[in-house]
């Protein structure tokens, strides 16, 4: 004869909630929700050891030198100005870089403009041959270098936003990938970082 079905005593689960609460509180305390932020940059590819250093010739009107000395002072030089111009404020760099990259008046001492057919944008006059060369000294404070990078990226962002608004009526970050690519072609980021040089100050 089969045993009469016994009622299984229910496991007392009233403390499960407390246990999981404890675990929850532990994880709440140890969690760090801080999101890491930073300025994203891309390094150039390493030079090919088999090749002789192929010096790319760039017309001097296309280069904007941004130089930082060991004291963290900023000097900007292009074809127009001489190196003896003196130091400028970090806040002025953005405007200076924008004027240089844009070259609205097609000024003969700023980057050359030429016609380029860009997908979605059609025929454009672009200054995509420009180069911004950032030179630092080994003694330059990191903060000064960072601020320069930040201002240059900001200059590009503002220029891209301007052209995006003009062509697509929206800011760059709201564009589709295809539109973004077109804008990037219009204003490519050409920031070159030369090996640090020793000039202006010791260390």
């Amino acid at each position, binding site marked *: 004869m089969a045993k009469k079905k016994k009622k299984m005593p229910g496991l007392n689960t009233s403390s499960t909630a407390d246990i999981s609460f404890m675990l929850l509180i532990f994880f709440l305390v140890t969690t760090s929700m801080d999101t890491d932020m*930073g*300025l994203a940059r891309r*390094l150039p*590819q390493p030079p090919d050891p088999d090749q002789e250093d192929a010096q790319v010739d760039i017309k001097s009107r296309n280069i904007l030198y941004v130089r930082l000395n060991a004291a963290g002072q900023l000097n900007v030089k292009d074809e127009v100005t001489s190196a003896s111009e003196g130091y400028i404020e970090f806040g002025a760099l953005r405007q200076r870089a924008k004027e240089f990259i844009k070259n609205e008046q097609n000024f003969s001492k700023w980057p050359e403009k030429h016609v380029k057919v860009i997908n979605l944008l059609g025929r454009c006059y672009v200054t995509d041959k420009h180069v911004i060369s950032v030179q630092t000294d080994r*003694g330059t404070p990191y903060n000064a270098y960072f601020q320069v990078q930040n201002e240059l990226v900001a200059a590009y962002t503002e220029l891209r936003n301007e052209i995006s608004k003009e062509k697509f009526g929206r800011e760059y970050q709201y564009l589709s990938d295809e539109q973004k690519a077109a804008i990037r072609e219009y204003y490519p980021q050409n920031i070159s970082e030369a090996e640090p040089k020793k000039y202006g100050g010791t260390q």
Partner: protein
Amino acid sequence: MAGFKRKEGREMVEMNTSSLPDLIFTILFFFMMVTTMREVTLKVKFVVPQGTELEKLEKKSAVSFIYVGPPTDQLRAQMGSGTRIQLNDRYAEPREVMDFVAAERQGMVNEAEQVISIKADQNTQMGYITDIKEVLRKSWALRLNYSASRRN
């Protein structure tokens, strides 16, 4: 008219709490997943620079950190106050960055997505950063992120 008369001896209905543990477990699992335990103990102290054009570090699993700065106060007596580079749990030379990058690359799903985040003190001299950048370039770790905080 007994409508407002309170019935005597009526028991309070107990709330069914049997699903409470499940609920809490769900929250628990959420926190377990988003938690990143700090893997390294910092041996250098740094105050990152402030910027405006910052981007979030998207894929945490593809990010490796390099810390640059003077030793912490506890370690200053032994190590001095010169700038140090920290990889994982120890001080390192710039040339060791290459091995570090290779080791971090192991087990990454997509090696091309590797991002190196440099957390450097704002008063560091650029020489250290340039040395690191040179080695990173040689080891084909080209995506770089200068860690910073947002300036308002």
